[in-house]
């Protein structure tokens, strides 16, 4: 398994390289530069600024030196924040993004599994239809609608929770509740649908009947025998789920005014802060590839029929 993991990580390198390359040239090909200002600046000064950031060199040379920097873990200076490097910005934003994203992932997995199993055990009864109706709504209502609605209701109408931002730069529980719920809702919906379908298949199989015939309690039958066999589809969804959470975080951080790296990405893309954008892309691409790998490894431990090749 270690060998497999190592090989997968090796394959991931060209993938990340492709992403870096595409993103790099896409930004350079487009008109506009990070130093465009309202009033045109004297050509001489402009040249000096460009030279300071090596932006006056041929694009290919910039690309090679950027790649060289990345290999050494150097993501370069930010082009917009004069006193910060990209690494500084990422380190500042990462905790918020990580807390919100991970909590949402955990919440979605647990809630989705519980709801999906509950629905499967009551197949075609009121409880099942209830859960599936709610799940369909969860899929149909995007986070940028849910977020403002929750802010409107819990933040402004009831006044129970703050509507956004951090508590003087600190991450506190009450400020995380709404963002995490908003981010995880669609994933709870998808997970519960997956789990329901898979559990319905499993519950009909012979060994479940055997387990019941042995006189095991219903809880033991479902939790020990059923769940393990029903989990693989959920585990393989971990990769896409983390990709969806990353995408969602771009919106969540905007809606709830959280200073995470998703927000830095959007701001950076609009302001042509090339290096910040590249930094976020590299981090998120690696994260998604890593999550896919974890999912595959988990799948292999869970299901002996899956062979890693």
């Amino acid at each position, binding site marked *: 398994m270690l060998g497999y993991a190592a090989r997968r990580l090796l394959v991931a390198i060209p993938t990340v390289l492709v992403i870096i390359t595409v993103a790099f040239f896409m930004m350079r090909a487009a008109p506009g530069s990070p130093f465009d200002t309202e009033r045109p600046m004297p050509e001489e000064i402009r040249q000096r600024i460009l030279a300071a950031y090596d932006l006056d060199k041929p694009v290919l040379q910039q690309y090679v030196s950027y790649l060289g920097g990345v290999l050494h873990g150097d993501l370069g200076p930010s082009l917009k924040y004069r006193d910060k490097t990209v690494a500084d910005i990422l380190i500042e934003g990462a905790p918020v993004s990580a807390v919100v994203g991970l909590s949402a992932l955990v919440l979605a997995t647990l809630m989705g599994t519980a709801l999906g199993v509950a629905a499967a055990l009551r197949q075609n009864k009121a409880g099942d239809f209830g859960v599936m109706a709610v799940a369909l709504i969860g899929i*149909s209502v995007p986070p940028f609608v849910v977020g403002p609605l929750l802010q409107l209701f819990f933040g402004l109408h009831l006044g129970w929770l703050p509507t956004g931002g951090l508590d003087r730069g600190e991450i506190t529980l009450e400020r995380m509740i709404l963002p995490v719920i908003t981010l995880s809702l669609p994933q709870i919906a998808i997970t519960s649908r997956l789990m329901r379908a898979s559990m319905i298949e499993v519950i009909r199989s012979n060994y479940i009947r055997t387990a019941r015939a042995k006189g095991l309690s219903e809880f033991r039958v479902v939790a020990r025998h059923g769940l393990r066999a029903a989990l693989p589809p959920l585990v393989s969804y971990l990769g896409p789920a983390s990709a969806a959470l*990353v995408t969602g975080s771009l919106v969540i951080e905007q809606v709830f005014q959280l200073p995470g790296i998703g927000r830095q990405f959007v701001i950076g893309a609009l302001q042509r802060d090339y290096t910040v954008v590249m930094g976020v892309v590299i981090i998120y691409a690696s994260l998604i590839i890593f999550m896919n790998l974890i999912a595959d490894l988990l799948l292999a431990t869970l299901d002996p029929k899956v062979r890693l090749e």
Partner: protein
Amino acid sequence: MIPAINDAREATTAAAAARGRSLWDDARRRLLRNRAAVVSMAVLAAFIVIAVVGLLLWPHDYKAIDRSAVGVPPTMENLHIFGTDAQGRDLLARTLIGFLVSLSVGVVATMVSLAIGVAWGATAGFAGGRVDQFMMRTVDVIYSLPYVFLVILLLAVTQDVTTGKPFLKLLLIFAAIGGVEWLTMSRIVRGQTLTLRRQEFVEAAVAGGATNAQIVRRHIVPNVLGPVVVYMTLTIPVVILAESFLSFIGLGVQEPLTSLGSLIKAGSEDMETKPWTLLFPAGVMMATLLCFNFIGDGLRDAIDPKDR
């Protein structure tokens, strides 16, 4: 099934009544029995008619700014039944145009993804061997890219070019979203093509003397079409969401044109003082997406009943 028998049947008048039900007749019957799907189709059709007729007949224009009526709550007075936005534009007119823009982005970008996906998947499936390997590995690689970032980048870096040219912007959005949504479609089509080619009924048709064209028309296309149509219906809401997402972070359709996503963004900024500017577009968006999902689920159950 065998053409000769079919021909013979159709030749006799009495056989008209005894004609077998086709795959599609069955599917239509099952779909029409699905209440949620039927209601959704009706609602969606009603929305489209209301939006088109409304835009033509409604006394307020979606771009017209009325400085004497800024931020008016929903009222019968002067027919601002959805109220007006922070600039004094009629919210109903804006919601209608926003709905139509979102819908057309959904449909057009889905068509783009359909065209690429079917062509790519069918070619890979028919060619097989190394061509297939290469084409599908390419799809795998693109699949693992966080393409949202690339779409955002593409739209962000072209902003200077597209400013003041809403139509060009719209085209770019079609291309960008359609260009990334085709991957799943190509996988589905390839898988179907591969399995169909080896099916016994195809072999039987060959043995029965059917030509290649007949096989493709009678056997391959109907069988590929089912999953493709289902997936298409489920792609439209995904695309609508994607466009709204882009509009929400400020990269979508440009003023004065609008989409449901842009309206929701504007509404969420004003929600403390003018909650209706958020609630109406959000409601329309939710209803639209729900309808598409119900129709898609219904179609899937109708065409492929074993998954129910």
